[in-house]
């Protein structure tokens, strides 16, 4: 048997409840695809400290950055980098992981910011 997700070759005996082995394998593949995609995503999300770093990061992944909360700043960043605010995250786990509620200064305007948001170029 060959797994499409990893290319791994496996040998099973046909008489040993192969249907159950295949069910397990399909579950493992489903899980592996998720884990792989998650590892890739997490590796390509980065908190950025300044606008230069920001511009480089949105070329390869998501940037977590402070934003002053204004439409003007959002529009300017979009115009200059094509990156948009994808969302203001709401999941507890994500908020904690990236300390999203910490106060700071806007990546673009330098004005005080009460929260970090997720920027990226989008389809």
């Amino acid at each position, binding site marked *: 048997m060959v797994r*499409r*997700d990893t290319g791994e070759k496996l040998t099973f005996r*046909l008489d040993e409840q*192969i*249907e*159950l082995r*295949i*069910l397990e394998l*399909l*579950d493992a*593949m*489903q*899980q592996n*695809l*998720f884990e*792989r*995609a*998650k590892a*890739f*995503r997490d590796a*390509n*999300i980065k908190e950025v400290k300044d606008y230069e770093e920001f511009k480089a990061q949105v*070329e*390869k*992944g*998501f940037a977590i950055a402070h934003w002053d909360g204004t*439409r003007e700043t*959002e*529009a300017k960043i979009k115009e200059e980098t094509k990156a*948009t*605010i*994808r*969302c*203001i*995250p*709401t*999941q507890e786990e*994500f908020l904690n992981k990236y300390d999203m509620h910490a106060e700071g200064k806007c990546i673009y305007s330098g004005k005080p910011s009460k929260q970090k*948001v*997720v920027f*990226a*170029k*989008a*389809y």
Partner: protein
Amino acid sequence: MAEKITPRSQDYSQWYIDIVLNAKLADYSDVRGCMIIRPNGYAIWEKMQAALDKMFKDTGHVNAYFPLFIPESYMKKEAEHIEGFAPECAVVTHGGGEELKEKLYVRPTSETIIWSTYARWIQSYRDLPILINQWANVVRWELRTRLFLRTAEFLWQEGHTAHATEAEAMAEVLQMIEIYRRFAEEFMAMPVIVGKKTESEKFAGAVETYCIEAMMQDGKALQAGTSHHLGQNFAKAFGCRYQTKEGKLEYVWATSWGVSTRLIGALVMAHSDDKGLVLPPKLASRQVVIVPIFKGDKADIMQEATRLQALLRKKGITAFIDDSEQYTRLEVCRIRTARHSATCGAGTERCCRKAMRSGAARHRRKAYISTR
């Protein structure tokens, strides 16, 4: 039709198009911006529909269908809504050879036609909540299109709910974005970030928009689903009020939420590699492909392959027997048969009998039935 797949490292956009075309998921159409969803692509959509529809029904929603055409006067009732959608609407001006008295918009989304209807259906608190979903096509006049990801016409589901209180509407908004998160992560195997849109990115006519955002393999984001808190905006625009238990008149609270065939594009981009399409088992229409390798008695091997297929099917696994070697031979045989039939009848028959003896024809038919 692309034959080779461009590596991701070389040209990610071209790689995506190559995958979609090679896997026969979709094709271009002569109608600008519109796509043809081929059977392989539609099979993924059907799997998505089945999983989502079950999640909707499990949370008390029901399906209905509203008209494709929306009178211009309805579209114009909610100011922000028409401002946001007007530039990308297709508008019908003629019907039956005559100019229409009122232009009809081809739905870009159905809030207006649905809320004009809810205004008739809702009088009292007893009429609430309404939890309706619609599976439909919508049209948004996109100039720069890309198969599945951005097309002028696409398929989607749109839920439109009506509630007595803001708290109840908000709970619905959050429940639906959570259903989308679960669907993306558990079925599509695609991790997402749940969050709110900014004022400038939210849905035209919404108070708040919640979304799920996924990362594609080139590091770009793809919005995979949205759930909107519409407040009382549409109820006010359409005069939809209900009588409370205490006998007061209040405007109804609304939500809407949707995902579209864009998810197929996301699925392709999230998992496929330079060799071709990779689908998570839960959304694959062929979870297992059995490839018989013929050594010795072919009939025996095909019988074993068919037995295995039946065994897997019993467990709910979709298994497909790819006996393309046999298929090719049989095709060759058929072509020969056609040629021979004009010249020598005996040869024809021998040829066919030989093919039948190998069992290929019978088994092939069985295998196909199981996957369609």
